[in-house]
């Protein structure tokens, strides 16, 4: 079953959704090393609820809500060979994550995302489900390196590992693959951007019938230009609302004409943006690109918000996109 999507101003999400109680319980089991039937049932139930909320809000291109992932880096570190996990490290306020430690050569061990994608797609009412993967550069940056002592070698091994996963996903039928690289905007060095570009080549080169997406947020996105425009990417997913859409001027400077997923929701604030405010953001995006190339979505993943806040924000976002489409018509 497939569902016809609007051809303009499609709505989507970056990936994560607030954790449901079932997901939190699953994390506890996982930490104890229990990944049996109860764990799988809990993850599925949480995923189902995330998908239902996305559908309830009216999102066009869904994700699975990342209910299996307690953390975007730790999840992959636990699935790949070569990693260990540290004690908790602070990210902000009193929010912590267990940072991966690279303790050996990184390699792909088994399929990590295929079953979750298949399940999410089976309950998505025919809407496409995007797969999100934490990118090699971010995986390296958010890990302690006790093995390589050489960023490029580690990142390229990560890219090779993810290429295997992407191939498995494509074989299964996935058509939207997003590589999340939030760490990329933290570095000033051009060398880092070039290494990330090599990694994208490894992961995405030669893929057909797949929308190749990268999500990058927070930090100094402007440092990535113009090199990032040469990456094998079809759609750039940026955080723009939080920085009052200043990034659009930069994109205009570089005559940006690829697809843009425009962040119109602040994910670090529990304030529900009114529909009119979101429409103003969409209008800013439409000054740069035609509506066919503009996707509407929150700045970043929603997992830090309360569920009811996240859902309400998404509903307003979908309504804003609908009204904007009407205005265009």
């Amino acid at each position, binding site marked *: 079953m497939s569902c016809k999507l609007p051809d303009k101003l499609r709505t989507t999400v970056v990936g994560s959704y607030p954790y449901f109680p079932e997901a939190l319980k699953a994390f506890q089991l996982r930490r104890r090393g229990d990944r049996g039937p109860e764990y799988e049932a809990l993850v599925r139930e949480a995923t189902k609820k995330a998908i239902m909320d996305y559908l309830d809000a009216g999102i066009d291109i869904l994700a699975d809500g990342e209910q299996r992932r307690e953390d975007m880096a730790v999840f992959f570190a636990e699935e790949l060979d070569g990693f260990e996990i*540290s004690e908790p490290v602070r990210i902000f306020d009193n929010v912590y994550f267990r940072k991966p430690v690279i303790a050996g050569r990184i390699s792909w061990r088994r399929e990590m995302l295929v079953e979750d994608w298949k399940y999410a797609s089976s309950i998505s009412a025919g809407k496409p489900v995007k797969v999100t993967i934490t990118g090699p550069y971010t995986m390296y940056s958010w890990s302690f390196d006790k093995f390589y002592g050489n960023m490029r070698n580690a990142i390229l091994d990560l890219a090779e590992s993810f290429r295997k996963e992407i191939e498995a996903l494509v074989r299964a039928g996935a058509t939207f693959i997003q590589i999340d690289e939030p760490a990329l905007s933290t570095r000033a060095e051009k060398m880092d951007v070039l290494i990330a570009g090599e990694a994208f080549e490894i992961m995405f080169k030669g893929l057909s019938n797949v929308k190749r997406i990268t999500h990058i947020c927070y930090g*100094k996105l402007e440092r990535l230009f113009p090199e990032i425009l040469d990456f094998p990417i079809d759609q750039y997913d940026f955080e723009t609302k939080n920085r009052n859409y200043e990034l659009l001027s930069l994109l205009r400077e570089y005559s940006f004409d690829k697809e843009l997923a425009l962040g119109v929701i602040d994910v670090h604030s529990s304030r529900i943006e009114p529909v009119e405010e979101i429409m103003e953001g969409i209008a800013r995006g439409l000054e740069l690109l035609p509506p066919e190339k503009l996707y509407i979505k929150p700045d970043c993943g929603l997992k830090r918000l309360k569920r009811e806040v996240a859902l309400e924000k998404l509903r307003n976002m979908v309504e804003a996109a609908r009204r904007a489409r009407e205005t265009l018509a």
Partner: protein
Amino acid sequence: MRLHAGICGSFPRPQALRKAFDDLSEGKISDGEFKNVLRECILEVARLQEKAGMTILTSGLLSWHDLFRPFTMELDGLEAGRLIRFFDNNFYYRCPTIIGRILWRRPVTVDEVQEVRRNTRELVKAIIPGPYTFLKLSENRFYASEDQLLDDLIEALRAEVNSLRGSADLIQVDEPSLVDPELGRSERLKGIEVVNEFLSKLGMPENEVIIATYFNLDPERYAMLLDLRAGLHVDLRSTPAEADLALKEHGFDGQILSLGVIDSRSIYPEDPREIVYRVRAYLDSISPHVLIFSTSSWLDYIPYNEAVRRLDALGRVLAEAEVRFL
């Protein structure tokens, strides 16, 4: 030359405190119960520092959510705004948002410093954010004049330092923006001017104040820092080759030099002997009255258990240096 050792600023929160923060925000414990846990954890971290051989102690800044937070919460005219990445770290601060006239009303950090003071005979260092970094990393929605903003900010920070004088032996003023590679030369010069103006308002001897920089040292930036009329902390680990060159080329003849020799953002094992050997290579170029071995920056970037190891390594650096240098 006297040798000391002490961490640059924060120490990771013990697990009990992390839980207490969560419990407080969920209403499971009272303010009083939270403060008791905080006090116990400050003592735990102070004891760890003493045990590792630190001769300068901090409170570990355990209650601070970021460099600015206690001040954005306690000073008039400020509120904690959006989350912003702290330089190139996977660590975020709430942007201090200026919404009214900045005024100091009451001591912000004295309680935690006094807690350490009461429980140690070692030197105690208090930390405050510096006015230039505060200005650069905040968002002004109130002042029409940046000069007026700076006057009020400097006065508020001066009042805080004044309140710390009976409790702290050293005041560390954190100014990472002074070595921010994004700044041009004229902006950096302005930063030095702002900090020197602040120092002149403090009116404290040079051997009681340290301006702390971290993350991005190079010879040109370091040469400019030498115009500061205070002690200096520099990060030798984020850009090691440039930092070593800076010290060799430009030396140091001020009162206090604090060297960030232990990498606070990595858990790669440290070799105290190798560290001392490296410092020895430019010992002829530097002649501070007090040389402090320190962590390169705050320790919030690594887990608690790894910070304990780093602390131990720092103690061994001091012990090794005492044998090699004195």
